[in-house]
């Protein structure tokens, strides 16, 4: 247990990321002060200078592992955490920076920095679960605020979070949206994408672009066939599965099937 036996301790950690998922903690405007009464915010540099020594009862981890130092640091975080929950696409699937996994990182580095030897980086961006055991993975680029609160509440009540692994299609139907693909021929990744956003894009007359990553059971090949019928060229099929969850296996494999000539298909 942490320093204050009466309240569980919470730590928020950052690895390679945009800060958007930990910002979602601070975006709980109505709940933040109440949350701070239920848990002791023991380590959260974005919010406070104060640091309470570990171990921590609950660690929320944002970001992916992209440096040798961070590969060591995540092990230390795991050792000092009773429960470890990853928040967001970077921590859960490697994030958009995992696009490097399909490229030559030396070339990437040289393209951005004149003196690449100053820049320390690994050739891949990997999810937290590739390094240490993870108790729960919360999806999304970014995570959904309500789902985050559910995860923390479930932890406090010592139960599993009530978060389903259905597809965006199910949420979309529940919301009463007209299907953008059926009605307008708009390409949509909803059938293969993990729920959690509340079918946001179709509600804005846009096809889902997969920011919550693949659902638990997907038939990406069938969806690609449908997208082809709608007129999507191979080049775009390759790109559409290769964004914020590019290294999630179901999306990585489907993207590779449509790789331009010359790129290794795996």
């Amino acid at each position, binding site marked *: 247990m942490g320093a204050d036996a009466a309240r569980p301790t919470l730590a928020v950690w950052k690895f390679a990321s945009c800060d958007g998922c930990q910002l979602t903690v601070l975006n709980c405007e109505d709940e933040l002060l109440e949350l701070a009464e239920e848990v002791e915010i023991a380590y959260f540099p974005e919010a406070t200078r104060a640091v309470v020594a570990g171990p921590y009862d609950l660690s929320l981890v944002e970001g992916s592992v992209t440096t040798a130092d961070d590969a060591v640091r995540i092990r230390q975080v795991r050792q000092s955490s009773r429960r470890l929950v990853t928040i967001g696409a970077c921590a859960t699937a490697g994030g958009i920076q995992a696009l490097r996994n399909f490229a030559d*990182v030396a070339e990437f580095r040289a*393209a*951005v920095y004149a003196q690449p030897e100053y820049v320390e980086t690994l050739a891949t961006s990997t999810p937290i679960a590739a390094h240490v055991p993870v108790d729960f993975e919360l999806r999304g680029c970014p995570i959904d605020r309500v789902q985050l609160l559910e995860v923390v509440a479930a932890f406090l009540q010592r139960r599993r979070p009530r978060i389903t692994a259905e597809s965006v299609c199910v949420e979309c139907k529940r919301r009463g949206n007209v299907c953008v693909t059926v009605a307008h021929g708009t390409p949509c990744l909803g059938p293969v994408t993990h729920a959690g956003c509340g079918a946001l894009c179709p509600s804005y007359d846009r096809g889902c672009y997969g920011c919550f990553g693949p659902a638990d059971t997907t038939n990406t090949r069938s969806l690609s066939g449908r997208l082809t019928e709608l007129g999507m060229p191979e080049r775009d099929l390759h790109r559409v599965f290769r964004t914020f969850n590019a290294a999630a296996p179901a999306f990585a494999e489907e993207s590779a099937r449509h790789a331009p000539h010359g790129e290794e298909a795996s």
Partner: protein
Amino acid sequence: MTHKGAGEGRELTAETLARVEGEGAMRVVVTDGEVSEVQLRIYEPPRFFEAMLRGRGHTEPPDLTSRICGICPVAYEMSACRAIEDACGVSIPEDIGLMRRLLYCGEWIESHTLHVYLLHAPDFLGYPGAVEMAADHRDVVERGLRLKKAGNALMTLVGGRAVHPVNVRVGGFYRLPTGAELRALRPQLERALDDALATVSLAAGFDFPDFEQDHEYVSLRSERDYPIEDGSFVTSSGRDFAVSAFGDWVAEEQVPHSHALHARLRDTPGPYAVGPLARYSLNHDRLPPTAREAAYAAGLGTTCRNPFRSIVVRAVELVVACEEALRIIDGWSDGGAPSVPVPPRAGVGHGATEAPRGTLYHRYELAPDGTVLDAQIVPPTSQNQAGIESDLRGFVQDRLHLDTEELTRQCEQAIRNYDPCISCATHFLELTVEEG
């Protein structure tokens, strides 16, 4: 307060800068009574966005680059859209421009409130963070959270969500909110305007160290309004240049201690600064009426040179954003198309908009089919990095009598004056090695 002998060597360090976005460290070395070394070290791992953008379609940069920063994603979406539209030779209609400005107001409210209340105010009121501050100043923290929530509500309606909005596309939006939906937000924004005015009063009452800098100020300036989503460049020494000339005026340099490149004006030896102080000082005459009155009441002149007062200017900009949002909502009429087509063509395009912490520049080179051949992104924090280090140097030199703990704390406060976004700054630039 402990007096330390000026003759000894001292080192001030903060290994993990708290209450900033992203991961950075600070190191200041004092040798024989002189500040000999100042580093704002950005060790956050790079993510190579410019390289990842190569080979993507011309419709993709708004979604992809928004992931550079979760705190100012709209800034990335807006600068990317403008640059791509410029490359393709497309102008957007006035109503789409207004809706972009409205969305951007939401981001200014959300981001500035986050900084003023949760990141910076604890320095002035003497707390490690806002949650601790709430124990004694519950009403202040609750006001901040309420104001931040109003910004997020605006972003959620116009953009679909507060972090990485989904409704923005090259050429406009996927769906425009209706006038009725917009007017439903009016009560919340009226309350936000009151809260913003109270924020100006709060910040104006803080104690400020006696400190000024003389950095060249750089900001956008537009025909009529306070610069947010539109304008061309002006500087405090009276120069002006088009967004497309940015690369002729600004050079970027890599330094060993940082994953962010340092930017400098090619013809100016000292640092330059972007952000609220620069915007305000170069656009004081563009403030809308309520914001102008609030600035006057807060004792701000037509320019501001004390970086510690940036919290007051940020509060005035909160008034600007609330006032502008209400004006746009009141004038909105339904019926326009949500977007215009942006067919690809070969070319180079430039886009610059005012992110909450300063000007954000994007440049794209497109192939005839719209494939991105080359991308360059210059975020505000990289432009401010040299100025932050310069401020620390001058600030510490005059305060060597303070004990190390207190001086370190004040140095962190001096860094926060710029609301540095380290996540942004790290994911840098296409570097062109050249000397102009």
